[in-house]
């Protein structure tokens, strides 16, 4: 009898010990944008290649995702085995020792194929801490038909003056065509991404070398004045609550003449299934003011593994699959080359099939190469990052400043007041955090 029970217990113990090894479950936190959802759909391919690993998805809206993964990694909650993080988080978290170095993603990963600008932002002390899933800069997307009607030709590298002129000429409010659509929704990753990049091209910067906020500078005043001028005269109604998604919907339904935003939007606006203006879209570099910096940013969504994860090997296997060259082929074979996640690999931009299917490829690559996170501004700065400042305090500051500029766009405060409030709020936080002595 006792032997039987022991045998039974033994068997149970073995089966308990064996079953987790049969299928390891990875919990993957990701953001709900088109490329990530496509990856989720293609999970079957991964399952076929790696039957020992099961995937569980947590797909969340960007801000919720950021709040969830940050809370979890900072408290070492251990809820996620793979996290989708941005170029902003990667260096900060890597320095804290929160991420697992990804220096061995397999022989065919070909880490040297990653675009240098993107890779640089994810590398700390020579080690890659997050694998880019897609990368983006920003550029001008415009309606060729409307541009022609207005009697203008968009240069490959326009100036802000030309943008103003073109916006005026293309606006036709009676037919709900607005010359320019820009982000207005408050948030460090929303309107401040655009405005910080725009400010760079006006010679403005977030901080001087002593970490003193610079919103009282002439360059910021000029930036905000031009932004408000463009939006108030030629922008769509409700612009102060428009983010990337809202503007995309506007552009796709033919309501924008020009739109300056993420390069990844290019594949959505040229996709005839989603876009009513797919045939008409042209591309140009983000504008400049002749000061040597253009108003384009640099961003990538990346996959990373939190330190302390028990499933590091399986997680690396997954990341290796999702960010590999093979994955690009897989997407191409299922959904066409134009839908491949862009902006991470040099080889993609040498692939004839891709260049043919994606008219925006060259402009995307040129935009990414035109951004320099190490030297983002005309004047010297103590920080890294084009449209953000890679310090932990930036999320809070960026959003608070974004609120002020959004309010200026909505007309509830003056531009002057908004800049003054921004200066005050930033200085307050920087003083508290000990940057300003």
């Amino acid at each position, binding site marked *: 009898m006792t032997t039987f029970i022991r045998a039974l217990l033994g068997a149970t113990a073995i089966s308990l010990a064996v079953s987790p090894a049969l299928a390891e479950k990875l919990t993957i936190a990701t953001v*709900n944008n088109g490329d990530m959802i496509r990856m989720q759909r293609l999970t079957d391919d991964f399952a076929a290649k790696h039957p020992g690993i099961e995937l569980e998805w947590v797909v969340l809206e960007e801000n919720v995702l950021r709040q969830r993964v940050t809370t979890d990694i900072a408290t070492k909650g251990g809820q996620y085995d793979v996290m989708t993080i941005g170029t902003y988080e990667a260096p900060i978290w890597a320095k804290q020792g929160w991420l697992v170095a990804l220096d061995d993603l397999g022989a065919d990963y070909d880490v040297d194929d990653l675009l240098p600008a993107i890779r640089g932002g994810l590398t700390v002390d020579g080690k890659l801490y997050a694998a880019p899933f897609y990368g983006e800069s920003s550029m001008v997307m415009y309606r060729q038909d409307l541009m022609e009607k207005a009697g203008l030709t968009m240069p490959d590298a326009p100036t802000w003056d030309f943008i103003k002129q073109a916006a005026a000429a293309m606006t036709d409010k009676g037919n709900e065509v607005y010359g320019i659509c820009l982000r207005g929704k408050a948030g460090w990753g929303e309107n401040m991404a655009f405005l910080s990049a725009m400010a760079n091209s006006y010679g403005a910067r977030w901080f001087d070398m002593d970490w003193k906020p610079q919103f009282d500078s002439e360059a910021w005043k000029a930036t905000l004045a031009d932004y408000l001028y463009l939006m108030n005269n030629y922008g769509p109604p409700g612009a102060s609550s428009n983010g990337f998604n809202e503007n995309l*919907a506007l552009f796709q339904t033919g309501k924008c003449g020009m739109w300056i935003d993420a390069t990844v939007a290019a594949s959505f606006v040229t996709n005839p299934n989603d876009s009513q203006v797919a045939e008409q879209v042209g591309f140009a570099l983000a504008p400049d003011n002749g000061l040597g910096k253009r108003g384009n940013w640099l961003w990538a969504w990346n996959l990373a593994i939190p330190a302390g994860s028990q499933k590091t090997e399986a997680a690396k296997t997954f990341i290796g699959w999702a960010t590999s060259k093979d994955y690009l082929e897989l997407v191409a074979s299922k959904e066409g080359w134009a839908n491949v996640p862009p902006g991470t690999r040099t080889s993609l931009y040498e692939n004839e099939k891709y260049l043919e299917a994606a008219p925006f490829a060259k402009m995307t690559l040129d935009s990414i190469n035109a951004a320099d996170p190490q030297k983002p501004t005309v004047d010297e700065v103590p920080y890294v990052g084009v449209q953000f400042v890679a310090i932990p305090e930036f999320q809070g500051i960026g959003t608070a400043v974004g609120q002020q500029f959004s309010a200026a766009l909505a007309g509830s405060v003056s531009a002057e007041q908004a800049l003054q409030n921004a200066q005050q709020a930033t200085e307050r936080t920087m003083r508290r955090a000990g940057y300003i002595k």
Partner: protein
Amino acid sequence: MARRATGTRKILVTLAAWSVGLAIFFPILWTILTSFKTEAEAIASPPSLIAFRWTLENYVEVNARSDYFLHFMNSVVISLGSTLLGLLIAIPAAWSMAFVPAKRTKDILMWMLSTKMLPPVGVLVPIYLIFRDFGLLDTRIGLIVVLTLINLPIIVWMLFTYFKEIPGEILEAARMDGASLWDEVVHVLTPMAVPGIASTLLLNIILAWNEAFWTLNLTAAKAAPLTAFIASYSSPEGLFYAKLSAASTLAIAPILILGWFSQKQLVRGLTFGAVK
């Protein structure tokens, strides 16, 4: 009475009530209708009420993207579990407050309600740390505990007001007959209190079902209920009104149907002792 005689008045009242009712219900109706449109029709101008090509494609896509059934089951288990656990704790408490009144009863009730005033956003980090240490993150049981605690004051109060309306003489009579405390609660009180308990149950299922802060922040993949499901549709790329509508409809439909079927019970108990 003159009032009863006039049919015109009834017609007018009916018209007014129906228009107000439809106006209040309209956002939900509109969401349900939009969920059957294509994305292009969802933003068409002018929008059409029913004359569009009905399609199920949004539901198909939502189901392909997320495991609706898992989220649904989590919502059911969590809201039902926390409500039952809450009732188990609250019934004795409410009973003793209603039938053995002490000077402090009102103070205790008010204090219980005041525990609801701690803003969840301010205590997320402490709770997250506690949950991590007890291994409760992303578990149904963890959420059941939290939702029980946040809704307990409401449950106690509802039951208390309901129990108070039960005449004390009946209990005394039972006691005279030699009924024990247990008998008193189980055989005398509970049957009389069933309607009140039922409506408390319903209200708390609704509150737990719709709680969107803790359920979103303490879960990842396994225990995430429908509130987390909806968080992945709140801003997808491009056109998304139809998909958002489909996801919204799926998230609210179960509780809406439950609520409608049981509205009589719900309403009866929803008075918090406001009606004598």
